[in-house]
């Protein structure tokens, strides 16, 4: 290690850059961008106004076999300082008695409309039915396994005072952050990429994805783009469509919802694999026009957004194995030491970004997470990149997103016939 330290000390800036080109290209700009955007761009304040009580607000909850969770979610909605005017709950072909639970909630008067289908139609179809049944001017989509901060709904509604805003993303934080090492890392990840990342993007007007866990839509905007489309990743899809249609999409950092993340590695890999496959399919197949300068809907803002994803997510994941191979080939076992050295730098940067994320994220409890920050770069820089790389490869080569278990087979078949 001392050897490596001495070696690095002996390097010039140019040779260091040659040695750590991966870090210099894929890591430092990422951190720098986050930092610079959040620190130096002014925050886009929402127009200050009451809590949008004059608008009718509907909450739509769709779940598949989530009978044990749905009541907690509904009760959390009733606890809101700005209670939704209407709560619509759908059981999408549940097999666990969720339909019964939903019926019971309806009889208790806790929800205004209860619907259940016998066959599973998929999340997108469920959300579309929910939106059709709901009567509100603003529709808030909520996942069954989410719970909320008391002011989440009130805070997410503020942004709709701007008539250009078509949708607002809520801030999703991790509820089970200390359940395992992986969940702690994910908690840090959500803080940095979702909370801090979206705040940064919000400053550019480029909020990338309204999480299906908690997002609000203006009905006119929702109907204009025809609601959710079939296939997975429907939340990202809807956001991209909305921005294509010219609607502004915002991020409400103070509208906090909590969710459980996967605790076991296999579940995490499955979940992320699905997300990344859907992202590739949606960004480069379905919404490829966003990057085409000759497309009538092309905009530089969108292009920057797509580039950000391309460089920091896709290319970084692809380049990582080459970098490691190159390092080992050039320096032999000494390469390991160099990597470790690079890791030290990343840990320092991680800590800085973590602190920044904590400082700009309301309602987060950072202390339990601090011990895990040093390991975060291993998780995010190494482990997640491998997961991504595998997902990208599956999607590019096998179009694996078609076999996504989240989308019913009948829908996949219908989609396959189209393309």
């Amino acid at each position, binding site marked *: 290690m001392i050897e490596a330290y001495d070696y690095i000390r002996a390097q010039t800036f140019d040779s260091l850059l040659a040695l750590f080109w991966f870090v210099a290209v894929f890591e430092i700009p990422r951190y720098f961008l986050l930092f610079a955007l959040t620190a130096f761009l002014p925050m886009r304040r929402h127009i200050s106004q009451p809590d949008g009580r004059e608008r009718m607000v509907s909450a739509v909850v769709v779940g598949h076999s989530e009978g044990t969770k749905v009541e907690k979610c509904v009760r959390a909605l009733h606890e809101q300082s700005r209670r939704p005017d209407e709560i619509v709950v759908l*059981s999408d*072909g549940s097999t666990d008695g969720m*339909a019964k639970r*939903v*019926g019971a909630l*309806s*009889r208790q008067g806790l929800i*205004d*409309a*209860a*619907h*259940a*289908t*016998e*066959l*599973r*139609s*998929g999340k*997108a*179809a*469920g959300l*579309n*039915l929910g939106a*059709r*049944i709901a009567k509100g001017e603003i529709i808030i989509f909520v996942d069954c396994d989410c719970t909320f901060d008391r002011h989440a709904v009130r805070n997410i509604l503020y942004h709709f005072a701007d008539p250009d805003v078509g949708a607002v993303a809520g801030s999703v934080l991790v509820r089970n952050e200390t359940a395992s090492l992986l969940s702690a890392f994910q908690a840090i990840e959500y803080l940095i990429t979702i909370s801090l990342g979206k705040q940064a993007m919000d400053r550019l007007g480029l909020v990338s994805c309204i999480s299906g866990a908690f997002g609000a839509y203006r009905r006119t905007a929702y109907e204009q783009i*025809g*609601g*959710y*489309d*079939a296939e997975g990743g*429907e939340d990202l899809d809807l956001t991209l469509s909305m921005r294509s249609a010219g609607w502004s999409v915002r991020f409400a950092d103070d509208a906090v919802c909590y969710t459980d993340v996967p605790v076991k590695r296999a579940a995490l890999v499955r979940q992320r694999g699905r997300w990344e496959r859907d992202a590739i399919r949606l960004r480069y197949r379905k919404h490829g026009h966003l990057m085409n300068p000759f497309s009538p809907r092309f905009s530089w803002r969108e292009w920057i957004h797509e580039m950000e994803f391309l460089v920091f997510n896709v290319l970084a994941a692809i380049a990582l194995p080459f970098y490691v191979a190159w390092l080992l080939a050039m320096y032999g076992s000494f390469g390991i030491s160099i990597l470790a050295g690079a890791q030290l730098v990343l840990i320092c940067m991680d800590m800085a970004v973590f602190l920044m994320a904590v400082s700009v994220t309301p309602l987060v409890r950072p202390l339990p997470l601090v011990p895990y920050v040093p390991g975060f770069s291993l998780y995010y820089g190494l482990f997640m990149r491998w997961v991504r790389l595998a997902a990208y490869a599956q999607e590019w080569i096998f179009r694996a997103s078609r076999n996504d278990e989240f989308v019913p087979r*009948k*829908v996949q*078949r*219908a*989609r396959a*016939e*189209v393309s």
Partner: protein
Amino acid sequence: MDTTSGATFDLKRVLLVEDSSVTKDLVELVLSHAGHTVTSVETGQAALDALFAEHFDVVLTDFHLPDFTGLEVVRRFLSERGERERPLFVAITGDTRGLLSDAENCELFDRVVPKPLDVDLVCDLVLEPVLPVSKRARPGTKRSASTTDGLGLAVLEWPIGIGPAPVPGLPGIDAILIREARDLQILWGINGANLLPVLDETGTLGASADVDVSTLSITRTDEVRKVVERFHERRADLHPDLARSEDPADRLLARIEITGATLSARMSHRHDGLVAWNTICDPGGIPALLTKLEKEGLVRTTFFERIHVCPSCRSACLIVREECPTCASSQLTDESYLHHFRCATQAPESAFVQGDDLVCPKCRRTLRHFGRDYDRPGIMTRCESCEATTVEPQVAFVCSRCTTRTPAEAVPTHDVMSASLTDTGRAYLRSGTAFLGPARRTLRFGDFPLELVIALNRAAAEYNESRQPFTLASIHYDGLDAIRQQHGALRARDSRRLWLEALQQTMSDRVVVARGTASDFVLLAGSQLEEARGQIDAARSEADRTVRDDLQATLRLFGPEDIAR
């Protein structure tokens, strides 16, 4: 006798027309003891003379008099004096059926009392106010022929049009004939109505009546006779306390016994409670009575049905309906959800229907291929009134009587029970109120048969004059219930009668043997207690030998001192 309470301030002048001295003595004794003025005559002519000579409030007349009938007495009096100042005419007869079958009798007499005379009843009758003329049935009203006319039964026709007003206890009546099913609760309220078979001429009472006589054929007339006979037998087994009881629970209990030991519930749309039992007693009151009887251990109940009732008016005539959870309208229709796979549109079918085609409301594609383009993932309910949709309509009950609407979860229920008598209940019905209290098996004057009262009076008078002792033995049969259960009521009664006859034969002529309801009695005039005990014990073992069934008779002896106390 202490049965003439309240008589001191309402004294009547009574004319008793009776040729039998036993009856005459007794009625005279009882009525004058109660403070009434009693004039007794033996013939019809003497009665008329007395009636023309002075004013009487009540005329108790035997139907068969040495010179002419009691009816003739009434007729002659009325032709002379008219309806004004008319006393209450009460016929005393051993042949109620024959008397009641003659329409003229029915018009002229106010009451008909059967022989042997019930002293309590006579006292009650005498106290009854005389009805003003207008309240009586108009003479000459034609009575329509009834289906039971040819059966030779003494029938109380309901509603009461013409004829004598019912005497409390309905003595001498064999059955109640329902000609119109109205005011049945008033009928049930008449003392004694609970012990008579109900013949339904309207055909609408169902099992609440005992026999449906709306279509009477030869087989049915036999059935009527059998039912009347059966009721008669069972009625004879009841303790007088219970036969006469005014307590609603007692009356129901007696009715259960008399119909054959079960009170069975059934569905009935004619009552607000939607259930009825095999009695004309108001079904609304029965559950409370059964609860009381069951608590006392007299009946055993079995579950029949759980009924929902209106929380505001308690009626069970509820309309059950599925309704919209939003606006409570029941105008609901079922509709499929349709799921268009390709664009994730999921909506009610009506959003897709365009003529014969299904067109996606979002992407305007025509849906052609079920299972490939689209499917129907479920059914929803749509409200035609407010357009709301739901997966599960709520259920509510609307009262058809008071229109109160109640959600299904909030509708109160109550359990309808059938009931049958327990052994305790049966024993209570045979032994009277004494059975339940601490006074069980002690001597009660109310239980004494008439002939015993007369004999006891005589013996008591002799004891008072010349210190001539007497002994009264009460006989209770502990084995009677067992025999009844094993061989039936008839056999039990026969055995008891036989035993008593055997006892009587082995004893001297000076002994008075009297048959009571729960107990029988032997009065030995002129015998000391110890002397009597020897005599009775000897006779008893002789009687036990004669009768095959083991009656397990227990005898208790009382001297003059015991009775005076």
